[in-house]
């Protein structure tokens, strides 16, 4: 039997949602029929709008898709202006204030506290400047990810940027691919280091060569969510750049026709790949969805991948710092702790990108930003800018490695508070824990639930939201996983310790790293150490402990209307609210 979501989608979906959305915006929140809320909020996702969690009714998260993380000159300033004017809620975040921009792990942008009534003005401003929220969420082609310095990277095998942009152009707003069984995440990478993280996407184009032609090998069925992580699997297909559209469209159409529309939990490409196997997918793709002979896979570069590998391989583990481009200019990657940047700082980012570079800014899958096209002679002045005191190009290891998802601040699925907690963790670790000798890259990813938006399974230390009881009281807790990473031999973290009270996690990390330093062989990496150590021993080395770290979010933050409000009880919620912010009284 079709799900409610499929029924709603069959009635109105895709591009046509916009007309209804703008009508509702014109008439105000109360014009959405009460018995159609679920249907419309599900549909609004296709236009990049998520209704925030309970206690925050009438406010939306807005996601702006930036293909391959590229923001053209002028676009960052537009994002800053929109955040400043429209992304202000009824309460402040104690770490980030009341207007901020989130750079995401899919190289996109998220704003919060957006009011329905403001959406027409925001859309107008975005679209006048070449930006869009179209298909940023919902069951369709999501923002395409890739190496964030595609086209500028000195370690590039094939320039994937034109391919990514062409796929975005072809499949955004394309009615034939607008209503898929589930989300569709695509990675296109041309660099030699694996920066596109294709392994964790539904569809991945990875650099390869066949018969002297540079192009892409194709993988399908990767993903991290729902405790069912999968690495993308090879389809044994090589695609020259000019055929990327046809092959990607064929696989998307195959998923459209054969993905599970009766069970959304089984609807992702990874489950179809489990069920069919890659040989059948390839055969059906060839027989039914492309009108030319597919080539077998070319020679790939996977044994050269170093990105986020967790190894001591002198490779690229992020894009932070000063790096030479292929044209002699430089790019400067700035560390954005947990990916959140205030609106004023975002405006400053736009200014320095314009003053020292081409004005372009790029977003990475580690929630950081990159200023590109900086001439060598301007580097010193750029590096002397005050903004770089906060968003450092050479940050402390624990600041550099921290990623966090949205968490219970806004998200419906999350079990625990995340961003502010991870900020506090990073600061405490920096002040209290010695970084193991020679370690510069150490990734700690905090995800509030099994949806895995912070990509916890591919970090040195993986943290995932849970609950436990401490002194009889229910408190927020984290599962701890170790030794995940990508690179040439990707591996998901081992979950070695469960339900550690959140206030004991920094102590656990400190003890673990001290134990690692004591036991490591030579300069082996943390991942190498984890791989040669049995799970029982690893669990013993974690040693959760209360320390000087204080955690203000131990209570059930999901039961608050906003975890940081002075009066945080659900009953104190000012939502839903009208366009002017005045609360709308309930009928009863």
């Amino acid at each position, binding site marked *: 039997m079709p799900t*409610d979501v499929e029924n709603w989608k069959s009635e109105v979906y895709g591009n046509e949602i916009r007309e209804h959305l703008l009508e509702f915006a014109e008439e105000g929140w109360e014009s959405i029929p009460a018995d159609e809320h679920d249907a419309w909020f599900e549909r609004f996702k296709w236009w990049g709008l998520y209704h925030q969690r309970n206690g925050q009714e009438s406010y939306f998260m807005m996601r702006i898709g930036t293909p391959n993380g590229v923001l053209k000159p002028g676009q960052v300033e537009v994002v800053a202006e929109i955040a400043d004017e429209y992304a202000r809620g009824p309460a402040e975040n104690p770490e980030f204030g009341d207007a901020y921009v989130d750079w995401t792990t899919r190289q996109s942008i998220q704003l919060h506290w957006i009011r329905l009534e403001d959406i027409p003005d925001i859309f107008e401003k975005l679209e006048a400047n070449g930006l869009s929220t179209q298909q940023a969420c919902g069951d369709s082609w999501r923002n395409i990810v890739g190496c964030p310095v595609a086209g500028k990277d000195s370690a590039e095998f094939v320039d994937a940027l034109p391919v990514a942009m062409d796929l975005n152009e072809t499949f955004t707003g394309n009615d034939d691919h607008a209503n898929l069984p589930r989300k569709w995440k695509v990675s296109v990478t041309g660099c030699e280091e694996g920066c596109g993280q294709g392994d964790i996407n539904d569809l991945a184009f990875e650099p390869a060569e066949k018969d002297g032609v540079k192009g892409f090998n194709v993988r399908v069925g990767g993903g991290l969510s*729902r405790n069912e992580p999968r690495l993308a699997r090879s389809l044994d297909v090589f695609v020259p750049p000019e055929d990327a559209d046809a092959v990607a469209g064929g696989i998307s159409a195959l998923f459209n026709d054969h993905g599970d529309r009766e069970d959304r939990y089984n609807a992702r490409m990874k489950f179809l790949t489990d069920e069919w196997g890659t040989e059948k997918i390839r055969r059906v793709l060839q027989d039914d969805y492309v009108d030319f002979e597919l080539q077998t896979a070319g020679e790939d570069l996977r044994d050269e991948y170093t990105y986020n590998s967790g190894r001591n391989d002198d490779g690229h583990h992020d894009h932070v710092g000063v790096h030479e481009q292929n044209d002699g200019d430089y790019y400067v990657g700035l560390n954005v702790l947990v990916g959140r940047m205030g609106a004023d700082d975002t405006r400053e980012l736009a200014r320095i990108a314009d003053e020292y570079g081409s004005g372009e800014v790029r977003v990475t899958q580690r929630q950081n930003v990159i200023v590109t096209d900086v001439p060598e002679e301007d580097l010193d002045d750029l590096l002397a800018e005050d903004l770089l005191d906060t968003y450092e190009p050479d940050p402390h290891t624990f600041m550099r490695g921290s990623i966090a998802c949205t968490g219970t601040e806004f998200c419906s*699925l999350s079990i625990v508070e995340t961003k502010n907690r991870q900020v506090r963790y990073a600061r405490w670790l920096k002040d209290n824990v010695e970084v193991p000798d020679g370690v510069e890259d150490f990734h700690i990813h905090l995800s509030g639930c099994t949806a895995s938006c912070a990509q916890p399974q591919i970090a040195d230390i993986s943290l995932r939201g849970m609950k436990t009881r401490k002194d009889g009281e229910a408190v927020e807790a984290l599962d701890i996983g170790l030794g995940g990473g990508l690179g040439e031999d990707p591996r998901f973290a081992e979950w070695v310790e469960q*339900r550690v009270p959140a206030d004991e996690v920094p102590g656990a990390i400190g003890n673990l790293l001290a134990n690692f330093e004591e036991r490591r062989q030579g300069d082996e990496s943390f991942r190498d150490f984890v791989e040669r150590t049995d799970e029982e021993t690893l669990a013993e080395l974690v040693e959760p402990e209360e320390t000087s770290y204080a955690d203000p979010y131990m209570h059930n933050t999901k039961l608050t209307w906003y975890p940081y409000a002075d009066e945080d009880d659900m009953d104190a919620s000012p939502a839903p609210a009208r366009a002017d912010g005045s609360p709308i009284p309930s009928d009863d």
Partner: protein
Amino acid sequence: MVVAGQDPAVSVAIRVLDDGAWVSVDDERRVSVSELWRVGGDVCACPDDLADFVVEGFTAVGADGRTVTADVYGQCIRCGADATVRTIPVGRVVDGEFRSLAGEAVRFPGAGLGAPSPSQALPVPGSVGED
């Protein structure tokens, strides 16, 4: 899915929403993941057949008379056992309105409810439930 109240003319619409984050009742998000429930039966091997169960996701909703049920997956935080539990009660329809169960209620697969015995008491104060 629609659940009839005592008056057949009064009914409520129930569904799973937002990738399993909520049970929605009449287009309001009424039951959330991340709650801790006491679940009886053989969910795990904990003493007294009582799991201290954190709900990580809803996969289906249903009804047993006036009782609204859900299929959920999650984990007992006492022993760490992962479990999928079917037809567990989440609330009741009374006079055409949905009432959530109190957090302290003991829930059983198959829409059952009960009061905790003294040996099942977890260190949380409170009553059995609204109904």
